[in-house]
């Protein structure tokens, strides 16, 4: 019983987070709704039988990406000068039509077929580790290379951008 209640609460929080992240008028509210959504998607991962992915979601998305987003919003302020986050009316119309159209088209495809559901599967972290280190070794190494390159690139952008600006200011 309590699992069902928690499941529907998590689904409701996911819907609220998605709507708030795309509709809220202020950027910091959008980020907070996005954090809510990431946490509840982690809860959905747990209901899908993989607590490991739920933990990774909380660690990576809530911990790393969320802090990065809030940090950059604080750096790129001041937002109280222009509180409106919505674009022009045309853009809102196009975005709403596109999103609703994609949802309706794919909704028909998703809801009409009858899935063949297999037996329930428990968490298999050992199988995930074996797959990563045997079959998907090359993507794994490329991901680590990508993260190193992006860290170096971000530091270079920060440092060199600041230096160039300083030089221009001196001249």
């Amino acid at each position, binding site marked *: 019983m309590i699992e069902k209640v928690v499941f529907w609460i998590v689904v409701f929080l996911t819907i609220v987070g998605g709507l708030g992240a795309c509709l809220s008028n202020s*950027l910091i509210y959008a980020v907070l709704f996005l954090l809510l959504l990431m946490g509840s998607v982690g809860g959905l991962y747990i209901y899908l039988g993989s607590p490991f992915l739920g933990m990774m979601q909380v660690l990576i*998305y809530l911990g790393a990406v969320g802090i990065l987003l809030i940090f950059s919003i604080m750096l790129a302020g001041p937002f109280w000068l222009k509180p409106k986050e919505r674009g022009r009316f045309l853009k809102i119309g196009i975005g709403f039509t596109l999103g609703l159209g994609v*949802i309706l088209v794919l909704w028909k495809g998703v809801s009409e077929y009858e899935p063949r559901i297999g037996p329930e*599967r428990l968490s298999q972290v050992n*199988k995930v580790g074996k797959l990563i280190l045997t079959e998907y070794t090359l993507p794994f190494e490329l991901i680590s290379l990508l993260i190193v390159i*992006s860290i170096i690139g971000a530091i270079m952008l920060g440092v060199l951008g600041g230096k160039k600006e300083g030089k221009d200011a001196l001249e």
Partner: protein
Amino acid sequence: MPWNDPKIFQLLSLFLLGCGLMGLISRRTFLGMLISFELILNGAGLNLMTVDRFFYQDLPRGEVFTLFIMGVAASETAVVLAIMILLFRKYKTIEEEKLKGLKG
């Protein structure tokens, strides 16, 4: 049990995709677009995990790919935020309609 039905998870990930597309078009700043893009990535991860759990019984390949999506999303966010802070230093704004330097 409602969580033994794949349709709920698939419709949720579809909903996240729609919300992300709408936000991606209607936001005014680059940061808002990045937030909407994170919505789309979350929906993609949820969909992969659903397919892995319900339709693919052999090996957890969907979990592996969801982990890869998380890594790519984290590194992409770092680079985009660095570019955005640089843009803000130079032009004092991150609204996409005011950044006309490359328009010609």
